């Protein structure tokens, strides 16, 4: 009954440096998430709790900088927005549908939306939910493009479309 649970999230960086240079898109540098069928019988439940098995990719090894989008474990500034969207798509969808929430607040911060424009940003993303999420599972590139477009067509927020 217990081993059906999907419990472990392992983080995988999908492409090595070489692939990145050749192909500078988000698909080449995302923290894709991988759900694995965790084998959680009773014994591991007892013991697997003070740790979380993580793959070596997550560490910020000193020879890091190999993953393309991070340097020494932190996300390069040019990738920040894309990586955040990539890692928070379902939360952003939820937040945009109601025009509120911490994922949306965080995205606004990353784009650099000023406080006086936040309400408009939340409203616009809610109204344009169907455009930003034009399919049920848009790629990060598609989301970035449609979000940029939506902001560009709004008089108040047009200036922010450049920061995406």
């Amino acid at each position: 009954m217990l081993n059906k649970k999907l419990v472990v999230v392992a983080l995988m960086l999908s492409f090595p440096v070489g692939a990145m240079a050749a192909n500078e898109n988000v698909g080449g540098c995302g923290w894709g998430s991988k759900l694995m069928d965790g084998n959680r019988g009773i014994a591991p439940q007892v013991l697997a709790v003070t740790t979380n098995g993580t793959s070596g990719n997550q560490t910020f090894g000193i020879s890091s900088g190999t993953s393309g989008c991070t340097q020494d474990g932190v996300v390069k500034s040019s990738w920040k927005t894309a990586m955040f969207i990539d890692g928070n798509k379902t939360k952003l969808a939820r937040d945009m549908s109601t025009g509120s929430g911490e994922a949306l607040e965080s995205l606004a911060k990353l784009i650099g939306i000023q406080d006086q424009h936040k309400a408009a940003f939340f409203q616009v993303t809610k109204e344009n939910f169907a455009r930003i999420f034009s399919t049920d599972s848009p790629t990060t590139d598609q989301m970035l493009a449609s979000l940029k477009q939506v902001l560009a067509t709004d008089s108040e927020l047009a200036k922010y479309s450049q920061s995406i």
Partner: protein
Amino acid sequence: MPGRWIFLFILLWQPLAVSAAGNTYLNELVEQARRENLAQRSEWLNLLHYKSYVYWPGMRSLADDPAFFNAPDGKTDATAELEATLAVFFSTAEETDKAQNPQCRFIARYHWLKKELHFDPERLREQPCKRFNQWRAALDPYQITLVFPAAYLNNPASMYGHTLLRIDGKNQDEHTRLLAYSISYAAGTDETSGLVFAVRGLFGGYPGLFAITPYYIKVREYSDIENRDVWEYQLTLTPGEIDRLLMHVWELGPIRFDYYFFDENCAYHLLSLLEVARPGLELTDRFRWWAIPSDTVRAVTDQPGLIKRVVYRPATATIIRQRLTQMDVRQSGLARGLVERKISTADDRLHELPPREQARILELAYDYATYRSASGRDMTTTTQMHELLLARSRLEVPPQRPEVPVPAVRPDQGHKTSRLALGVGSRGGRHFEEISLRPTYHDLMDDDGGYTRGAQIEFFNMTWRHYRGDDSLRLEEFTPLNIVSLSPRDDFFTPVSWKINVGWTRKHFADNDEPLMFRASGGPGLAFNMPGSHEGKSVYYGFLEAALDVGKRFDQDYAMGMGPTLGWLTNISDRWRINLYARSLRYGLGDAHNARELTLEQRYSLNRQSALRLGLHRKQEFQDYWNGVDILLQYYF
């Protein structure tokens, strides 16, 4: 690993390349360090992760990676390590993508020694640490937060918890914490067999590594997938202390420590980071044998003035429960219908409702669909989830997400995890005195403030009794493992409760002999809230249990059987709880017999750290029946 040896060789060779003047200054610094006995100072020992041995005198570093030491015997000789470290600081090697200058590689050590020995920049040139500076700038640290994810549903073992540190950036606030980074320490492995993982983890079979990860990844893992409420303890570390912590984390990035589940685990190592940050904090000393993450949180909150503020982050399942309290059954039924694809978002029953109520239903449906797919019960299609959100986005009403009230008792404020009990009782007319010790952690009858209701986990529970007329104390029970998960079911959540109990106990045979014998028992069950009761305050339950008893007294040395348990666990008041249950086991294999009991347990809390227990039993084993009563005073420590 030739790569590592070449790296070490370069490191060691560098100092030889420095000028004679450098060597003179090095000698002066070494002299000065010896005079001031710097190598034995706690700051230095903390930087090297030196700890006393548990079993014999002396110290060694817990780091198990030669790259962490500049001296060949740096793991055991703090003085040699200090002097070798001073030597490598004279290196003028330039930083590359593959290697750093030792001043940057050991940047926390560098800054501490620089401060203590007043390095002369003319004679020991400071090297630029571009990579460290970029890294630090990207983190933009303002505050450090200790993060503690609490237990997840139907998994008592997860009550032990896990801890991580979060680096909060200057331009974040409570709404944008997803942008922070977390520092965690975990066993580095791709092992998917839980059992292999558990066994190797006990004996240090995995390398433990520090990792830095965007906090949103951790939130997804704990809040969304595992459904654990998360407690965030913001610390009062000053900018200088935060810098020291980050410099030290930088040193530890590639360093391997052997991972041990019980003592050298995540919680233990994170405490040692805080000790480096604020010299004089003594957090790890009390965890010589084992470090339970929730106890390490307690160690931090026990420090006067170390906590600034505590933030509670409810998990998806907790939010769903809160949403349900604001709805009637018809509305929640519609939400469930949407998720189970019994109705569509275009259904009239939904559209005839006021927009605000529609929004509530759609939001609940989406959260519930997320919960179900995360728990693997049912993969709601992305199309369906997309439709729910689309419908919600068309409603012109503000978000309907309720405020989840912060639990009155935080995990660090609950009863302590070890328990000693003293008492008296009578069993079949024979009086006894009893003493029992539970090293860890929580049972169903304990006050569950700060714990997860319905979750019991105990390790190495021991009970001794002295029966009137006997001349010695006898071991009554020894239970290395005892877990019960009592998770009430309802329309939205349908967990299967379970229990397992392994240990030695006394069995009553026909001739009044009561030998100690081994027993393993356990099985699945179902639990339900009493109508009108919320959050498991009053729960009735049933288990189907199998038991194996092994002992010389049995025919064929064993008896195996099964049978039901029915019970009712409820709070009479905040301090007073009762558990009434009937249990019947029919042993059909081996030495055939019956075992039955009817028990009423009561607990009355005197204060957070002490309670009274009263137990009343009627029991049968083989042909004999007897009554029992015991009263115990329990003290948590």
